[in-house]
């Protein structure tokens, strides 16, 4: 399998620049929820774990994938839930 690594590097650089630009504007009030939100988002690793767990691979490899899937899923669930829980508390009055 060949990977078009220049286009991947291109995507990485652009995504980082967008990330820096967007996150610089995040309210300082919200830095704790920001961290739990980005943590949930980066648990997108779930799609890689899912492919390893569900494909027709040897059992031991699928077990590694299953543990990774569990870890990512935990981050997604707890990350989004706790972010929302915290954000609900910020009131202007």
């Amino acid at each position, binding site marked *: *399998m060949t990977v078009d*690594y220049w286009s*991947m590097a291109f*995507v990485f650089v652009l*995504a980082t620049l967008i*990330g*820096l630009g*967007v*996150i610089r*504007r995040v*309210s*300082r*009030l*919200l*830095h*704790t*929820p*920001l*961290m*739990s939100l*980005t*943590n949930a*988002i*980066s*648990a997108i*690793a*779930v*799609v*890689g*774990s*899912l*492919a*390893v*767990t569900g*494909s*027709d691979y*040897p059992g031991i490899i699928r077990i*590694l*994938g*299953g*543990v*990774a*899937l*569990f870890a*990512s*899923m*935990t981050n*997604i*669930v*707890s*990350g989004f*839930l*706790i*972010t929302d829980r*915290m*954000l609900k*508390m*910020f*009131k*202007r009055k």
Partner: protein
Amino acid sequence: MSHLTQLSAIVATVAFILALQWMNDPKTARRGVYAGVAGMVVAIAAAWIQPEIIHHGWIVIAIVAGFLVGVPLSQVPLTAVPQRTALSHAFGGLAAGLVGVAEYYLWLREGPGHFTTFRMTALVAEIILGFLTFTGSLMATGKLQEVKWIPQRAVTYPGQNLVNLGVLAGAIVLGGLIVAHPTAPWAVTWFPGIVALALLFGILLIIPIGGADMPTVISILNAYAGLSAVAMGFVLDNRLLVTAGALDGSSGLILSIIMCRAMNRSFANVLFGAFGSAPKAQAAGEQKEWKQESVEGAAQILEQARLVVIVPGYGMAVAQAQHKAQELYDQLTRRGVTVRFAIHPVAGRMPGHMNVLLAEANVPYSALVEMDEINPEMPQCDVALVVGANDVVNPAARTAQGSPIYGMPIIDADKARTVLAIKRSKNTGFAGIDNELYVKDNTWMLFGDAKAVLGELVKQLATSGGH
């Protein structure tokens, strides 16, 4: 990769960027969470319906287990949010590391065609970053949770940095050799060595870190967790992983920079400088006595003020005093006193920690003011009330060269007309001498547990009635 997967990757990326965009204002922030969830659901659905996915049982089990652990983890008290966050960085690192290991053995099995230098380099980076983030974050979780067998304070020994860097260098060199000869028999034998060294490095990295450095270290681990997801994207040729990981990584980077600036230190100094071990400079010259104030007297001073600035620190979180602080805010506001909370970026154990605790206690966020905005107002401030903060108001940061906190920007509590400082006890050794704020002419101490003292102040104000 199918058209559907590619399309879902675009949709999810847009959703994630919007999610972060909406975090720029507390009014729109919750919308950001919904966008994030939507992006995630689209991405998972698209990955699951691929024809290669033929075993569904384990996927369902892992997802259900993720909910069973994730839901309780999202309900922890807000004082425990730093350790929950550190734990989630650990899970993120673990997932990346495990997928990296699985892919290596898969490629070995499926033939040498998989091993390009680029992919192998990405895979080694994924494994090193993933596993060092895993153990490093677990250690940070342990320190924050105050687990018995992990010392909270910074632990240092001679040659520590040499040992740490040696272990990291060992992992990188071994990784480099395996990148060059991925299928050689010795490479297959030694491959787990990269994992072991990365795990070890993560532990060693956090041993010399003390509590005050946690906001920076959590941010750095955040960046590593993001980068390990990026590396995983390179390994799996998955653009969505690269974009989402890059967003997480850049967030960790920005937070790290903000934290470092707020302590006037560099990344290297935080990671290898062992802040906690620096000898505390004993104040030379005459030792001034501190002056104590009664609760009644303090209540009177507060009552007569026009502008009161409350400076909270980690001590407020430890004493769970945020609700009493809110009651005090209410009592004073009702009397026409303007009350602001001055938030230092590194107050607490993670970025934004104080804001979340005070928001939970129903303090409106318009009363939460950043250091840079409050400092110009401090000379007009009648009373600065310090609640469980120490370093972030210590004037030694301005004057005492050689002090470990020299050069760190502080909240100018000492410029207020009167300073009231709540402190747990009179005789905690160095702390009183260290912080000359406590012995200044215009400073009055209130000794006792922060929650109890604030509670008494509130009671005093309530009984004296409004005007």
